[in-house]
Structures are given as C-alpha cells and as structure tokens.
C-alpha cells in the first residue's frame, strides 16, 4: 500500500525506503521516520485501544508525552510492551502490534465496555468490587486482570545488555532546543565541561518541527549546524537519544541513553541502553514546553491531535493524518498549524478559535468565538460539529483536527527535589517555582518564555551566569535573529456540557469523572488524582493534568493555583527495568570471590555453594556416590579417622598492630586478651553495645604489639567497620592500626588425628611440631616447603587435633596440591562446607545460626566469658535483667528419641502435653544435621533453662512440615565432650 498521506520535504530521507510491519500489515517508511509518522503517512490513524473502555485511539502527540499510540514493539525475546509509537525510530524490518484489543484493532470485543461506561465512572473499582469479600480473589481480581493490563510480556529473558555509568561535568544542559543549544554554545566557548542531553535523535527541539527561520537559515538547519559545532568541541558532550530522568541531591542527575533502540539488534558487545549518573556542578533545564489539548465531546477519535504535533508531522516527518484538516484553538499558535499545513498543500477546512477577536485566516476560514461540540467517525475522525459564537451548529468534514489549548512548561525536573510550580497569569500555566534542585536554573520555554528569540537569549544568559559563577568568562554568544511573537492566549479548558469528554486519554478519565470525584468530596488534588487515576498512566498526565486541574478548579469555585498541582517524580519517561539492573544480572549479579584452592577444587569436581560472595566447595563427590550425604558422611568419617583438609581462607582476617593492640582487643572482645602470651591464640566473643553477640573468632598474638583477629566469613566486612568505629570514634588516642589481610593469605584447616604427621612433612624441620613444642592454641610464623613464609595456628573447629596453615595466596593452589600429595599415605581427604558444618554441630560449636542477632553470651553458654574485670563493648547492657531471666534460652543438643526421626532446623520445642502455640514455646532448633558418627540426626537448639533440662524428653513440632515427635535434651558436645582429641 502506498504512503497516501506522505508530503514533500521534511527531515527524513525520502530517497530511501524501509519496510516495517504493524499488526499483520507490511508498509514502507523512510529513514528518519518514527513509527507514528510512518503509520500516518500510510494512512493509518488508528494505533491502539484505550485502557478502560477500549476506545479506538490514534496519536495525540509527536513525542514522549504520548498517551494513546502505545504499541508492542519487536518480536520474540525483544518484544517490548507499552512503547510509544511517537518516539520509536523506524528501522528496516521493525515490527509492532497494537495493544488492548481482541481479536483485532478494528473490531475489539471489549469495546462493549464503552457502551457500559455509565457503570465505569470514577471509583468504579472501589464501589463495585467491594462485596462480598470472598469474591475478590476468585472472581473480581482475575476478571480485572484479564480486562485491564497494558500490553504483554514475552516471558523470555531479555537478550540485550544494559550498562550503567558515571559522568562528571561543570554544567548539564537538559534539552537541545533553542535555549539549550544557545546555552551549550555559550558554556562550551567559555571552556566549561558541558553535557548537553536531549531525548530526541536530533538536536533542535521544536526547531525541527517549525517552519520559521533563524537568521538566514531554516531553524532546523541552524540546529544541525550548531549541534555539529558543539560535537566538535572537546569540552562538550552532545548526548542525543538521552532522557534526563530525574534530578537528585547535590547536582546529581539520572539519564538514560538509548544506544541501540533505533537498531534492529545492538552491535556486538554494545549495550541497548546506558543509565548514566551525572555529577554536575550546575544544570540548565531547557526542556521546553508541551502543548495541552482542549477538552470537548468525543475529543479522542483517531485523527484528533495536538496542533503542534500535526505541525511537527508535516514539517519534520512530511506526513499528515489526513488530506483535509481543521484546527481548534484558544491562542495564536493554532494558526501556525493551519498556515504550515496549508503551505504543505493540505486543505485546512477551518480554524475554530474560541476567541471572539481571533486573527484573520491566511487562506483558510476562521470561526471566531466558536467551539467544537461533538465529533463523529467510527474508527477515525470524519467530521466535527462546530457551534459558533451565535450558537449555530454546523458540521465540518475533516479527517484530522489539530487542537491547541496553550503550552505548559515542562517543569517536571524542577519538582524532583523541593520545587513547587507557581502559576503564571500571563501564559496561564505553571512555571518553575519554590526551591529548585541545587545548582539548577531554568531557561526558555521550560521557564514560560515561549518565543524563540527569548529562549535563545535566556539560554545564553543562563550559561553566562554559570560561567561567571564557576570562575570562567563567557564570550557574548553569536545568536541568529529569530521569531519573537508574544504569547496571545485566552484560557479555555473545556467545552461545557460535554458528557464524554476525555481529559486523561490513557487512563480514560473524563470531565464527568472529575466532577463526580469532587461531588464525592475528593477535593484535594492528590486525592482527585488517585480516585480518578488522572495522570497515573505511563505518560504521567503530561498532556492531561492541566485540564483536570482546571475542571477541578471550576467545579470547586477556586482558581487553578488555589487547587494546586500534583507532584512530578522520577522517572520523567517510562524506563525499562533492565536499565536499572545494568549488567548486574544472571551470573554477573554480583562479583564472585574465589578461594585460593578454587581451580583445584573445580578439577576435583567439587560442588560449590555461595557464601556471601564467596564460592566455597560444599562437598567433593567421588565416583559412585549418588547422593550428597554419601560424600559428606565420607568426608566427616575420614577426617575424624585420619585427616581432612578444608579451605578456610574466607574467614575474615584483620591485622591489628600498635602498642595498644592488646588493650584494643580487650575493648572489642567481651573476654580478656591483655594477658594472652605471644605465640598463643584465644577464642573471642564480640558483643554489640546492646549486649547481643555480634561475632566470634580467634585472635592470635604474633608479637607483643601484633595480633591477627579472625572473623566469621559472613561478618568480615561488618566487624572491620565496627573495629574502625571503636578505634576512631571511641578511643581516638589508642595506638592501634588495622588492615584486612583476608585475601593475602591462603588458609587451610588440616584436621584429624593424623594432621600433625601430615604437617610435619610440610613444615620446615627447624620448627617444633610436638604437642609440647606447639600445643593446642599455639600460633606462630614459620616456613614451609623449604623456606616459604607461612603462619600456623593450632585451632580446631571440628573438635579434632587440628591446625590452620596459611601461605601467601599465590601459593595456595600449590599448597592444597602438596597437602593432598603428602597426605596420601595418611588417607587424607578434602572436605567442604557441609562436612565442616556437620563436625562443628557434632562438637557443639556455635556458628551463624546461633549467633543470629538475637542471642547473648548467656544464651550461647558463654556468660562466664564476659569479663567483669574490665570494660568491653556490650558488657554493661549484657547484664540487663531482661537478658538474664532465670528461664533464658540456653544452647543444648537434641537427639531424636526414635533414631530414624529428623531434627529439622526451625522446628520448635514444646513440653510434652502442652498446647502447641507460641505461649507454650520452649525454644527452637538452630542447626541440624545427620551425624555419621552417631548414626542419627542431631540438632543444636535454644531451650528455656536448657542447661538444667538434660535428659528431658520434649516434643519437637513444625506444623508447616508436619513434624511432631519426641527428642531428648543432651549436651551440645556430641563428640569428645572432654576435648581430649584437640589436645592430643
């Protein structure tokens, strides 16, 4: 089919044709087209159905403020719902589908809603779906979900990438229309670093949509030339296809750059979009203005659009919605549309101007003091009914109507902090007011300055002011002569008496709905918005809010500034969730930390588990093992029988040095460290200041003034931060220095009765490894394998004779291989975090499940560790009465009475015969596992007065999982309670 409504000229490349598909129809357009302009050129006005009533709709605008022409773009995994046809740049092979219709756009079954509209007035959902309550989940919600919904998702992973980035500039200029271009030129020539961002693919703003000249040039030609000049300046970054989405604290802005949306597929390695965070010292908002419609009966038929949009389609895209058009206006701007379309050879049937003193038409009829009182045409406008000043009605045939109700400055970004728009009586619109975002000035139409001449000068002056502020001198800018018409407008918001007059076309809010809301006492503008959903659709009411406020003011008998305006919030235009995620998805969700033995463990076929960001070997399956428990049981039994090795590098290691290092440890640990001998290690418990256990670990004293503190893997970062707080804020004059050394050392636990024999082969012979020479809790700096510096700690988490050996990380891979090789004669086994967990539960050692942010030293059975001879963080409040009740929880062990029964973590303990409810709760299981040494499951639990209840039989319940059986309270030390093994 041919491009029946294509005009001559425009800023598109009519020498080349590209193909695109809308629903099932293939059409041709030209490079430079948007989907909307290409559809209009092809004679298509109907582009979608409305949200609530499924009314047929066409484009209202030619930009990002579009409420109606919302389509699903692309196919397959790249399918994207709710995309504005007015901003989608056409590329060869583009596909799009209309939304909210079934079975087809021309015949939509749900348009029956339109006939039932008297039932669907404002608040319909709240009123109708209230009763009976049970119907909500089963009937109402599924029904509403089917009927509503905007577009559909592909339900496939997005194949494209999104980047995030950070930019810095002296001045960010938002909008590359006349004001923005003049500002950028001035600031650029003054030597400031400038970012000029515009959402459009072309710089120029309205200059590309208008026909007037700039000096001797066409406006668009001046814009293109100026953009080229700016692009050549090294201190200016011209960013087209970049929407500034939000203004944040201290000059920070968010902006979305659409790098590849205008292409079928992004180039190799390139993102689809980039979300930039822009740090600016100053900003100039030159975001222009948006034309607003007039509200009248049946004002939503395809073909009815803003007069400025009609002009933009004709001048920039060489497209017209129809060959015969009319204009409805309350100001001089509407006449520009009539003049420009006449010049393009389109027949202008009439200009209906609400002003009795309307200017004369230049080759078209003007109906002064007239209004449009109805329209007709089933799937597109066919004619309008005009009522003239005397009240006479007549029909005028036209396929399109341009509507101009005046212009609203785009104040959105001025409101993202504390700005509150102010009413300007000269232009009858809100202009920026209140406290603007720090460093922001507003120039041009966004500030209510509508002539091109004034906008150019306002932009340049804003830049001169900023340059001076930042210590630069701006040369006086060389600006062309430009149009300087005064604003001539008589406010006219809606044609009274209309019944089905659309205020918010995307959410189908009518003038009647607003009156109804007022009648029902929703008189605050914020309530009005939420009750009627005015301005709450994807377009955020850019074209509808003002008319809604005006009607509200009228029914309330107030002025518009008295009614006030709702707030604008980021993002300025709808933004893909992917852009906020950036690269942080899938395996790149967050950085991965690998242990020094990772590559070796991979070779062994280890299963890995994420612990914080670390990947740790969870177990090492062997040939023939079909269940993870087989591997874990083997690793546990073999370690306890001979020797096992586990990478424990992930534990936090903090180097503490200084003449006050021991005193510092005394402050952070509840137990004493001052008297710890050099060459010895001690277990330490850290409390929070509120008396709750924070973390535990060991600290080894390498010298009088040098300790190595270990933390749990999960708390390494938090403990370091806490230690810095104590050092800098509480004890600023302690001589102590901290640094993390977690990553510097590869550390391996070597555990089991034969661990000493194995390490004897690794540790250089001059170091005494005997039980007397290097006893339990000894530590020291040694050398291994013929002279490599290393550290050795005799500490045990498993309860066995055990050591931890540390070597510089680069040798960690070699060390694990050496340990395995040297240990072959002792039947050495690598073990993972599961076996580590089983052995610590068997030994009754507390870990993260027990230090869970609610437990005290008393709960953990370590109350005697809290020294009363010295002060430490948390000591005072740990002695609070409420934390020391006689029936406080105590750590105990649990054994199922019937050995085949499980002891799941999270299950609760009840006294036999009591009710199973929170009031009778006796405690809960924190850690549980199958003990291969005992042959049944075991658990660690917190139990009220647990230390006095050994041997008691309790009921273990977990109603959610159906657990209800008996367990016996036993010591938490299931293995070697006397600790003989670790001292062997």
């Amino acid at each position, binding site marked *: 089919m041919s491009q029946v409504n294509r005009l001559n000229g425009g800023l598109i490349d009519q020498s080349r044709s590209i193909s695109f598909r809308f629903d099932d129809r293939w059409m041709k357009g030209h490079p430079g087209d948007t989907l909307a302009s290409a559809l209009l050129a092809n004679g298509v006005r109907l582009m979608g159905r409305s949200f609530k009533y499924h009314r047929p709709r066409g484009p209202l605008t030619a930009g990002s403020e579009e409420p109606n022409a919302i389509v699903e773009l692309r196919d397959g995994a790249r399918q994207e719902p709710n995309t504005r046809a007015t901003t989608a740049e056409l590329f060869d092979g583009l596909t799009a589908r209309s939304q909210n219709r079934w079975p087809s756009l021309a015949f939509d079954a749900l348009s029956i809603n339109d006939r039932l509209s008297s039932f669907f007035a404002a608040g319909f959902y709240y009123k109708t779906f209230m009763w009976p309550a049970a119907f909500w989940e089963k009937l109402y919600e599924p029904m509403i979900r089917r009927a509503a919904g905007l577009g559909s998702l592909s339900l496939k992973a997005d194949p494209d*990438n999104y*980047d*995030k*980035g*950070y*930019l*810095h500039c002296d001045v960010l200029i938002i909008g590359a229309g006349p004001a923005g271009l003049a500002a950028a030129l001035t600031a650029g020539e003054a030597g400031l670093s400038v970012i000029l961002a515009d959402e459009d693919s072309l710089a120029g703003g309205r200059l590309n949509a208008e026909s007037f000249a700039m000096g001797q040039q066409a406006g668009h030609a001046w814009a293109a030339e100026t953009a080229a000049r700016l692009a050549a300046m090294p201190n200016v970054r011209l960013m087209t296809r970049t929407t500034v989405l939000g203004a944040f604290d201290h000059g920070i802005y968010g902006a979305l750059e659409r790098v590849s949306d205008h292409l079928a597929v992004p180039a*190799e*390695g*390139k*993102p689809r979009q*980039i979300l930039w*965070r822009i*740090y600016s010292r100053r900003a100039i908002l030159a975001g222009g203005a948006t034309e607003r419609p007039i509200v009248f009966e049946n004002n939503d038929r395809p073909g009815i659009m803003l007069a400025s949009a009609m002009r933009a389609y004709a001048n920039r895209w060489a497209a017209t919605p129809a060959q015969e058009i009319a204009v409805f206006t309350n100001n001089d701007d509407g006449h520009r549309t009539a003049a420009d379309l006449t010049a393009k050879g389109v027949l202008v049937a009439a200009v209906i101007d609400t002003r009795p003193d309307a200017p004369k038409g230049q080759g078209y009829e003007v109906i002064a003091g007239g209004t449009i009182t109805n329209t007709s045409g089933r799937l597109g406008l066919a004619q309008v009914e005009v009522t003239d000043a005397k009240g006479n009605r007549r029909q005028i045939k036209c396929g399109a109507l341009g509507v101009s109700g005046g212009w609203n400055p785009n104040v959105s970004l001025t409101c993202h902090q504390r700005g509150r728009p102010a009413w300007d009586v000269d232009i009858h619109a809100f202009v920026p007011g209140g406290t603007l975002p720090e460093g922001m000035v507003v120039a041009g139409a966004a500030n209510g300055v509508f002539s091109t001449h004034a906008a150019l000068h306002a932009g340049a002056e804003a830049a001169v002011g900023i340059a001076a502020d930042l210590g630069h001198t701006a040369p006086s800018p060389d600006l062309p002569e430009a149009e300087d018409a005064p604003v001539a407008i008589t406010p006219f918001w809606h044609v009274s008496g209309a019944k089905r007059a659309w205020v918010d076309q995307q959410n189908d809010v009518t003038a009647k709905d607003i009156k109804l809301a007022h009648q029902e006492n929703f008189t605050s503008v914020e309530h009005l918005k939420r009750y009627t959903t005015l301005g709450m659709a994807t377009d955020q009411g850019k074209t509808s809010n003002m008319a809604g406020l005006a009607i509200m003011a009228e029914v309330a008998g107030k002025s518009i500034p008295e009614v006030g305006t709702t707030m604008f919030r980021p993002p300025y235009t709808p933004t893909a969730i992917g852009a906020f995620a950036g*690269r*942080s998805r899938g395996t*790149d969700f*967050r*950085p*991965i*930390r*690998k*242990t020094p033995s*990772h*590559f070796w463990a991979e070779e062994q076929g280890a299963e890995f588990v994420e612990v914080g*960001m*670390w990947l740790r070997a969870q177990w090492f399956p062997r040939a023939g093992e079909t269940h993870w428990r087989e591997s874990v049981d083997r690793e546990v039994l073999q370690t306890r029988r001979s020797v096992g090795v586990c990478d424990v*590098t992930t534990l936090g290691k903090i*180097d503490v*040095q*200084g*003449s*006050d290092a021991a005193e510092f440890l005394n402050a952070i640990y509840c137990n004493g460290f001052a008297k710890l001998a050099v060459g010895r290690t001690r277990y330490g418990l850290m409390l929070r200041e509120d008396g709750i256990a924070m973390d535990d670990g060991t600290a080894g004293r390498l010298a009088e003034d*040098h300790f190595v503190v270990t933390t749990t893997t999960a708390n390494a970062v938090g403990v370091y931060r806490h230690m810095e707080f104590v050092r800098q804020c509480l004890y600023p*004059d*302690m*001589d102590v*220095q901290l*640094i*993390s*050394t*977690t*990553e*510097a050392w590869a550390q391996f636990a070597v555990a089991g009765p034969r661990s000493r024999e194995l390490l004897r082969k690794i540790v250089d012979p001059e170091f005494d490894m005997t039980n007397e020479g290097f006893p339990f809790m000894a530590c020291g700096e040694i*050398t*291994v*394998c*013929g*002279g*490599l*510096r290393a550290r050795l700690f005799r500490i045990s988490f498993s309860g066995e004779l055990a050591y931890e050996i540390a*070597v*510089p*990380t*680069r*040798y960690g*891979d*070699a*060390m694990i291989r*050496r340990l395995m090789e040297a240990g072959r004669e002792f039947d050495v086994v690598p073990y993972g975090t599961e076996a580590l967990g089983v052995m610590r539960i068997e030994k009754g050692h507390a870990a993260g499940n027990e230090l869970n942010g609610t437990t005290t030293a008393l709960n953990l059975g370590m109350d005697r560790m809290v020294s009363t001879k010295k002060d430490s963080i948390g000591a005072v409040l740990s002695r609070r009465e409420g934390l020391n009740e006689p029936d406080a929880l105590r750590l105990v062990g649990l054994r199922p009475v019937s050995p085949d029964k499980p002891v799941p973590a999270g299950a609760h303990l009840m006294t036999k015969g009591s009710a199973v409810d929170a009031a009778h709760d006796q405690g809960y299981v924190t850690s549980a596992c199958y003990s291969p040494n005992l042959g049944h499951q075991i658990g660690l639990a917190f139990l009220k007065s647990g230390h006095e209840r050994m041997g008691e039989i309790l009921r273990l319940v977990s109603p959610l999982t159906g657990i209800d059986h008996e367990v016996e309270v036993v010591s938490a030390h299931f293995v070697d309670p006397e600790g003989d093994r670790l001292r062997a």
Partner: protein
Amino acid sequence: MHDLVAITPLGAVRPKVDSHGPVTLTEVTDRALASVAARLGHEAETATALERLLGAPAPGPARHGGKSLMAFWMGPEQWMVEASFETHEDLARQIGSDLGAAASVTEQTDAWCRFDLTGDGLADVFERLTTANVRAFEGGEAQRASVDHMGCFVLCHDARHISVLGPRSSAGSLHHALLTAMRSAH
C-alpha cells in the same frame, strides 16, 4: 628455596593479556605490596622513613608517587608501598626493619590483583565502571573507588596508562567487568 609454584589471580601460570580496540588489558603479577601505617605520635618519623624508602615525599591524599619505590595513599597516615616482587617478595619484612617501631607494616602482596589498562580512550572504559572522574585524571592520582561493585584502587600513571588493584579473590569478576566495559566503550 621452596618449590611451590605460584599461580596468577586468574588461575594461570602466566599473566593474561587481552586487547580490544585501542585498549590493552594486562594482568600484573610482578609487584609486591606492604601497607605502612604510622604509629600514634610517630607520624613525622614515618614520613621521614617513607621519604627515604621512596626517594620522594610520601604521597598526599588520593595520590601516588615515589622514585626508588612507589607508594600510594590509603587513608590518614596510611600508605601502600609497592616494589618489584622479584627483588622484594618479602617486602613487609624488608621495610618493616627500616621503619622499626615507628609504623605498623602488613604484607599485602597477595591481597590484591592488578590489571593495567593502556592505550587511548581509557576514560570511556572507566566511566562505565566507577564514579571516579577518570577523565579528569592527569597522572599521579590514586583513588580508592568501587569498580563494578568491587572495592579497588585506581592508579593513574598517565592518561594512557591506568592500573586497577582489586581484591584478588574477585580477579575473575574484575577482569570480566573491565573487558566488558572495553567492548562496550570501543
């Protein structure tokens, strides 16, 4: 001499080198590192000792420098000293004896991985990774910054040579992030 074979942070025997467009990304493994923190009341002594070691004054906040050895600023009264691994594998012990009781010295060599980016358009790569204003760097900057969520030091030698020191355990993620940003930017 011990007989253990070191591996690189990326898990190989030799450092990895990648090129894309105008940028070359090189894994650097031949540097030894030790942190130096002045003891309370020994700040001047530490500064003098550092100047002797570096052949230049200890660098100020967010700077790096040095002649015989290099160092960069980490925090108040705290620096990271850098030397050749071949000659200074046990750097902490070596400078520890120079500094005596004036400062606390801690071995840091293997806590970090290092990648050097060389070539043109480095700022285009870094603006996708970090809030640090790398475009304004001229040489001598040493900024601790989050690089794609990893805590790193970004050291600028000149506009065509920038080093990133990151946590050794995340070398794979950091390398991936740098290479991805290179491909996105160029």
